[in-house]
């Protein structure tokens, strides 16, 4: 979790016995944090010079965060070069150099994409492999838009998985969003076409399209996704304005292949990184940002309705070293 220390401490002070699960979780994490110093701080504690052992331990931190071979090697190589050129001597400075380097990968420009015309809905298509949390993310994102005073519609274009339509329906009820759905097995493009028609006539502000999870290696299913994308644009020129790829923070190097393939097929505008409330660091997004330059919009930190937070690169990097 990426809360600044101060926030977390404040949470503990304000917590009463009847706090919800999320707050309890936060407290738990804050406690761990106060008893143990960060991985990196422990590593550098008392060290006066940069040794090979130190670099190896650094490498371990990067690898175990799923940052991946290529990116880790680049980071370590750059540090090593600086050490050789005597630009870096102080382990403390090394720490900051490394952080800044990772940050430089993560801070990418927005991918240019169309915005809806005045009076038209913002259409967001949500895609990803099976089980990454697409439907849950949509529920939570809908809640965020509704809190901003927007009228939201959810379109159930996952007509494949048993009970996926029902799952989205329950989220719609929970957050107070319209849900457009057809039967399981219906043509997802048709559902989207009808959904957009309904959204236009009902003067909806934001449409979130839930698609079926699919492995990026399945060509037919990827073509189906491209078709949904095309059909949306036919009903409403410019739509979908945003395409969000949902990535599971527990995923390893395969996430790069996922991001590449989905990006080639549809052109991603944002990434959402889910399930960061476990012990996985989600370092895979560092490599993805470095390679594909797609910004990360949100992180998912729990199952509760408000557990979707804007991505903060600094907090994220901090958490890798914690």
């Amino acid at each position, binding site marked *: 979790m990426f809360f600044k220390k101060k926030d977390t401490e404040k949470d503990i002070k304000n917590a009463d016995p009847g706090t919800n*699960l999320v707050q309890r*979780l936060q407290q738990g994490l804050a406690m761990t944090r106060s008893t143990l110093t960060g991985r990196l701080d422990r590593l550098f504690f008392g060290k006066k010079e940069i040794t090979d052992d130190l670099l190896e331990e650094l490498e*371990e931190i990067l*690898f*175990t*965060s*799923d940052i*991946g*071979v*290529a990116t880790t090697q680049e980071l370590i190589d750059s540090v090593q070069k600086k050490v050789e050129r005597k630009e870096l001597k102080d382990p403390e400075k090394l720490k900051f150099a490394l952080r800044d380097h990772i940050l430089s990968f993560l801070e990418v420009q927005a991918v240019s994409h169309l915005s809806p015309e005045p009076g038209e809905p913002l259409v967001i298509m949500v895609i990803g*492999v*099976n*089980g*990454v*949390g697409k439907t849950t993310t949509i529920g939570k994102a809908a809640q965020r838009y509704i809190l901003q005073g927007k009228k939201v519609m959810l379109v159930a274009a996952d007509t*494949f*998985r*048993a*009970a*996926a339509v*029902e*799952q989205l*329906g*329950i*989220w719609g009820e929970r957050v107070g969003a319209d849900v457009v759905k057809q039967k*399981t097995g219906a043509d997802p493009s048709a559902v989207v076409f009808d959904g957009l028609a309904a959204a236009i006539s009902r003067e909806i502000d934001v449409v979130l399209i839930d698609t079926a999870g699919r*492995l*990026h*290696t*399945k*060509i037919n299913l990827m073509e189906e996704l491209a078709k949904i994308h095309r059909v949306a644009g036919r009903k409403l020129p410019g739509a979908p304005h945003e395409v969000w790829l949902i990535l*599971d923070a*527990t*995923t*390893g*190097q*395969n*996430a790069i*292949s996922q991001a590449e393939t989905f990006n080639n097929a549809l052109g991603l505008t944002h990434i959402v990184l889910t*399930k960061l*409330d*476990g*012990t*996985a*660091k989600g370092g*895979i997004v560092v490599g993805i940002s470095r390679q594909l330059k797609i910004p990360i919009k949100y992180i998912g930190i729990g*199952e509760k309705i408000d557990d979707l937070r804007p991505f903060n690169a600094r907090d994220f990097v901090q958490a890798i070293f914690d």
Partner: protein
Amino acid sequence: MFESLTEKLNTIFKTITGRGRLTETNVRDALKEVRLALLEADVNYKVVKNLVEDIRRRAVGREVLESLTPGQQLIKIVNEELSRLMGGVRYGLELSGRTPHSLMLVGLQGSGKTTTAAKLARLLLKQGRHPYLIPADIYRPAAVDQLIKLGHQIEVPVYPADTTKQPEEICLDALSKASRELADVLIIDTAGRLHVDKELMAELVEIKAKINPVEILLVADAMTGQDAVNVAKRFDESLDITGVILTKMEGDARGGAALSIKAVTDKPIKFIGVGEKIDALEPFYPDRMASQILGMGDVLSLIEKVQTDFDEKEAKKLEKKLRKKQFDLEDFQLQLKQIKKIGSLDQILGMMPGVGELKKLKQFKPDGRELVKVEAIINSMTRNERRNYKIINGSRRRRIAKGSGCKVQDVNRILKNFTQTKKIMERFSRTGLPNMGSLFG
């Protein structure tokens, strides 16, 4: 980078071939590559560290077999070591003692528990058992619905769980109902949860205590990264799991998580999930997993799959030809026909060695329609052309294009890819079955 581990090792060893023994020095650089390859495959950092040390000890001093290059010899050792670590033998479900037996599926959110529950039920049904599905996920919206629908598809009864009740209560009620319905295997689909969620982990311990299952299976996503060790360790510590099911194996993940999970829990991997269809559940074979982690393709699985459909004699003939470097377009034409019999193209491709390299070819796209085009082009060639592609000059190309209704560029592309493919195939021809049908577009 991982695709070409064998190639890389061969390059490293090139300078020292001729020496018939793996030594400390010549193995050192090669092991660096092995290490990176394993890390790239998502094997946990610490597991890799231990593994590489073991391999070093086993490798140094070993003689290089006459038929192998030092690189291949090392790969062989690595492969053996990985297979050994992941089990060596195969384990099925342990269904002993009094009926009904209970199986409990546990794991993180989105790992594929519900789908796996239905797949297991179908498998048991086929084995003549009477499975009974119990949805114990009261948290995820419509999770119970999902299992009921899946159960309906395969005609296995599902306990109509009341989500206002506690999971352990649901399980107890279901247990007595299952006995009345003469079910002999109960499959409990629990809610996905984080291994660090103390409250929800306690809930699983509670269910275990009340139901006393014969199997507690951790369902894990094959795409899991470094965190696999933490997840598996915590679930095992809390529940003493009896085995693991790896899901989503049909993608392009290397599946290093298999190795990590086995290393920290020492519990067998019993099944793998290879698709969304309910029959897509297969036994786990450590040796095949080892070659997949090493990026050498699942040659064995391919052989097995092909066995029923693929004419064995033809295959042997082809292998012989490959050894002699005589693979020609005629053989390829034959392969196309065989492939059509076997099934989905991407599934087959996933099992083949060298596919990683093929993917790097610019126009490589395993597309069903492309395949038709390729076949048309080859069909428009004369016998001599198929046997010796080198004679296909400009005017022949134009004729072939006309005959197949394609453009000359298409013909050029096919021929170019054919020659590249031929090279790759010849490289792999020593290790196993020929690389079939790799000339797509």
